[in-house]
Structure formats: C-alpha cells, structure tokens
C-alpha cells in the first residue's frame, strides 16, 4: 500500500480510520502524540556531519511526522511566507553539545524553499556569546538570517506569571517571531535530570537561574505555560546527532555518544518523556544509576502532563513513537 496525501491516505489517517473501525460507535479515543525518531547510522560522530545526509535525515523525519511524501509539503504545514520563524537553539555548551549548526542550516534551507525569506528567519538563544561559541555568527542585520541573543534583543516589560514562575520573556519570542521551532539537544542535565524540549524554553526567560531548584519541578512546566511559548512554539526538532547521558549540560565527551538521530514532535511532553527514556537506557547500558536514585528524576515532565498544565502526555500508551 502506498501511503501519502496524493493517494488520499496518510499514516495518521490510516491509524485513525483503523481505530475508528475497531471502536465502532464508541467514544473517540484521544489522538496519540507522535514522536518521530529518524536515525542514520552512517552519519558518523562529531560536530561536522555531512550536511547532505543531515538534510536527508531531516526530510525523513519531517515527512514521517506529517505523513507526507514531499519534504517541502511537510515544511509548509509548519510555516508560511510572511511569517517570521524563530529557531530556538541550545547553545550553552559550546560546540560540543549545542544544537548543531549543520542541522540549523538544513532547516533554514527548507524554510527558504517554502518561501520564508532569510530575513524572516531568526536563530536565537540566551546570549550572543553562547551563540558564537556554538558556531553561529551573531548578526542582527535584517537582510539575512539573523542570529541574536536575548542579551542583545532584550526582554519584554510585562511579567509573565503562571503557578510558581514569573518571568520577563524574550523580545525575540514575544515581538519578533510569529512561529518558533524548538531545537534542543538530547542530553543529561546535572540538576533537572534531562534538558530537552520543555527545559530548552528556559532560554526564553530572563531568570532561568531561579527555576532549577527542586529539579525544576514545577518550574519547567510553569514556564512552558506562558502564553508566548504556548502560542508560538509549533514544533520540536531535537538534535540527537550526538547525545549525552551524564555530566550535562556542559559538554562531556566521555559521556557522549553518536546517536545519529533527530527527534520530531509537536507534543513537548511526549518528546521529553521519549528522550528521557533513551538517556535512561543508555545510562543503564553503561552501568550508571537511574536519575531517580540521583534525586534528579525529571518530575517536571509528569507535572507538564497534569491537569493543571495539559502540555502533552507522558503516558507511553498514548505516545506513538515512530522510528524511521
């Protein structure tokens, strides 16, 4: 069977149709959260993977996620011309464990091909110096792709408040961007357990230092409830080309390994839960204690899924992990 929109059948549609048939007239089952993991074992380790292979890997992940055969059609689901698209990278760890510029370059290429001009693409993180150290050339010129830290772009004046968190939110998110693609790295975090989709948005607030206590719970979830984050972050593409299972967020080569993958999801909780399990499996394989025993189990993931937050699901039965 050929699956694709041109045949009037998508993988999601097939799944839903099958489920509907199976359940008959019963109440509709909540849709599962899809997390696509695309891997290319031949990609090779290191910070300079082949850009062509990374682009193909990205295409495979995006097509699978959206259930489309054409990569550009997939990207068109995400943004349209006239919108300013922000790419929230994670650059705290220099070149070792930050969002790989090769991946970002591939994303920019696809965005431009669907009609988003370079001037409407903004790569951003907390600090200009972090961007530079991760390999991005800082520029605020509006005739090209911008790369700018919050320290230059500033923060809004209005305090965003939810639950235990209160923060000023980055101007780049609040004012500049219409849509944001969240680009975390698959890695361990020495205080909050793991840093993936949810935690990466700490880079959007002025006071992340205040919210690492209690392993980030409930702060990570609370921050992700801020309206600008909820409304503008459309997708997470997690850089799992090189992953790190211990010693993060700093780059620790002895605890890194070439996962050669990308994780794509719209549900940040499902993506975080899936990524966390990958890191736990690697820790177990290496004979390391689970994060719970180290008192840094990322409980904020389940908090993000609770009735007060409803940012997604951490129930493995409701997560559809698709490996391609």
């Amino acid at each position, binding site marked *: 069977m050929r699956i694709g929109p041109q045949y009037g059948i998508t993988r999601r549609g097939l799944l839903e149709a099958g489920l509907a048939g199976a359940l008959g007239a019963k109440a509709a089952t909540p849709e599962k959260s899809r997390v696509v993991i695309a891997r290319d074992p031949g990609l090779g380790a290191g910070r300079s993977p082949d850009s062509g292979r990374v682009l193909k890997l990205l295409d495979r992940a995006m097509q699978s996620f959206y259930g489309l055969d054409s990569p550009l059609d997939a990207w068109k689901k995400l943004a349209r011309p006239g919108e300013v698209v922000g790419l929230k990278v994670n650059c*705290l*760890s*220099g070149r070792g464990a930050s969002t790989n510029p090769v991946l970002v370059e591939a994303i920019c290429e696809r965005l431009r091909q669907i009609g988003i001009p370079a001037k409407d693409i903004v790569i951003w993180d907390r600090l200009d110096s*972090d961007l530079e150290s991760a390999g991005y050339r800082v520029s605020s010129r509006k005739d090209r792709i911008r790369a700018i830290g919050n*320290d230059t772009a500033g*923060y809004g004046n209005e*305090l965003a*408040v939810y639950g235990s968190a*209160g923060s*000023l939110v980055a101007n780049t998110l609040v004012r500049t961007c219409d849509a944001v693609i969240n680009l975390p790295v698959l890695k361990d975090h*020495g*205080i909050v357990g793991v840093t993936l989709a949810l935690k990466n948005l700490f880079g959007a607030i*002025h*006071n992340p*230092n*205040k919210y*690492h*206590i209690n392993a980030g719970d409930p702060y990570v979830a609370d921050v992700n409830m801020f309206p600008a984050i909820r409304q503008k972050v459309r997708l997470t593409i997690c850089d799992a080309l090189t992953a790190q299972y211990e*010693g993060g*967020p*700093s780059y*620790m080569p002895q605890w890194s390994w070439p996962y050669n993958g990308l994780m794509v999801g719209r549900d940040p909780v499902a993506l975080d839960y899936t990524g966390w399990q990958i890191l736990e499996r690697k820790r177990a394989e290496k004979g390391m204690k689970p994060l719970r025993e180290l008192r840094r189990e990322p409980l904020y993931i389940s908090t993000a899924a609770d009735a007060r937050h409803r940012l997604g699901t951490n129930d493995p039965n409701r997560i559809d992990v698709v490996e391609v």
Partner: protein
Amino acid sequence: MKRRGFLQAVALPCAAACAASSDARFTIEARFYEKLPYKKIKCKLCPRECVIDDRERGYCGVRENRGGTYYSLVYARVCAAHPDPIEKKPLFHFLPGSMAFSVATAGCNVNCKFCQNWDISQVRPEQVASNFLPPKDLAALTRQYQCLSIAYTYSEPVVFCEYVLDAAAAGREAGLKSVVISGGHIQQEPLKKLCGRVDAIKIDLKAFSEKYYKEVVNGELKPVLNALATIRKLGTWTEVVYLVVPTLNDSDEEFRGLARWILSELGRDVPLHFSRFHPEYLLKDLPPTPLPTLERAKAICDAEGLDYVYIGNVAPGHPAENTRCPKCRRVVVERAGFTIRALALDGGKCRFCQHAIPGIWGRI
C-alpha cells in the same frame, strides 16, 4: 521618590560612574566557593550551596562559573543609589535622623513572591542599567551627600558580599558606618566576615515557619535564625523586620512563637518591626495588611516581653513608630514616618530615668 524609581545610570554625580559597557571591571573572583571535578564549583556563600557547571550561574544569577573558577559579576556594579533616611531601612536604634547612602546591585538569593524590588533583585546584572562605583568612590559619594552611613540594601547584599566587605572597609577609613539590609540567607563564614566589617545588620525575617519559607520565599528559615543568633553573638547591632502578609504568616501562634524565639535566642532588647505588606510581583491577589493585624502582632510580642516592637509602612504618626523606655514607659524617640520629631536620649540613656536604651546613637 518611589522605591522602584531609584537613581539609576546617568544620575550618579560621580566622576567614576559611567555606563556599564564592559563586564570585566565588575568581575572578580568570588571569595566563598569550592572547586569540584569537571570544572564544577560549589558556592559557599549562601545555604543553597549551588553546584554550578562551567558557564552557568548560581541561583542568585550574579555569580558565574568560568572554566572552573567562580566569579562575582557585580563587584561595584551599582544599579540603584540613593540617600535615604536610616529609618527607611528601617533601623530605629541606629543614628536616628541620619541619612544612609543606599546602594544595590542586581541579584538575590531568594525569590520572595511579594518582592517590592523584583526589577533589580530578580534580574541578572546585565539586564539592568548599572554604574561602576568602586569602594573609595562610594565612600566619597556618601560623604558628599552628608550621609553618616552606607547602606547595602534594596536587593540582597549577600550576593554582592565582596563589594560590601571592601566598601565597608573604605567607608570605615573615611569615618563612615555601614549597614546591611538582608534576608539573612547566608553561610556562617561570610557572615562572620561581614560582622567584622559592618556596624549593623537588619534582617528581614520573612516568617516563622519553614513552610512559608519554602512556598513564598524559596528559601529556608533555619539558616536565617542561625544567622541572627551569630550576629547577636558577635555583637553587631541588629534589628528584625517581619513583613506581615495576610493569611500567610499572620497567626497569633506564629507571632507568639517568633517573640519567644527572639526572647530566648537573641534577647528582649532586639528591636522587632512588623511591616505592612502591599500586593506586588507574584503576590497580587492579597490585600494590604490591615492595621489591626499589625497592632495585634505588636500586642502579642509586647505581652511576651519584648521591649521594642514597632509597626511600619503605615500612615506616619502611629504611636507604635515611637521608641519607649521599657522602664519608665516615656517616649524617648518620637517618629512620624521617617522623621524624628523628638529625641529624649542622653548618651544612649533615657533622659527621664537614665535607663540604657540599646543601639548605636549619635546626634541628629
């Protein structure tokens, strides 16, 4: 002037003061920390003992690990400066009627939901306009404004401890006193260093329950109580302020417990100020503290045997702003807000009965 309307940036009439264009001059190696493997450090300044990775900052946001060495980013990085009446701190038994040149840097090691100054205390130093004001220049500016003391206040002086230590020394050389206005969330070693350099420490005791400290302050009560006991033991003048927040820390039991602890651990003659809360920052859903609540708190602590219990942040002229001699009950310092209306002290003694009133007294 509103507390939030501090003199900032260009307003400092100091030759050395100029816009903060570079971080380097504000950056010095921190004095209280421990190096750990893998370029990590453990901060030993406050009870949190943040363990911090390379290129990361501690909870306060003003100290950064750079390659395994820990730095303060707020040395002489003054984001607020203003001559204030000492009564505003409040310190009621310390040079009454004098002015204190008051300075702050960005940062705080707790995150009180009611913070009145969150726009400087809960931000990073690079997120607020600052001036470079090294210790000797601060002392000169203090004298220029005819202030008798330097007050380290508004945010949390513990997080700019290195600056306080050096500025207090420079101030002392210039004949100035130094006072610290703090939440008292500090480890013993840096606290002892501070006590050796400054003349008074006012502690904001936010509540008398760990629950409140955890939920409202994001801190711990016990280290603050330990700090108070140490300050008292070392003989540094101290006064305690308790911000009364409706429904959260205003029970009779809590007031009574506080009074009994002060009585047994600090002594009856430590001034205690009950201050009125105003909704601000993350705690806007509660009303200002009703005056009768403050009066109830004072009545309970009076009854428990404390000698100097005050009410603050209320309309000027409330009788509980005055200092009464505990022996003859006459008013020895009459206040209206930050103004001293009358002083009946001679050499620190009640003019009427010669009873010694504790404090650091001087001429108005």
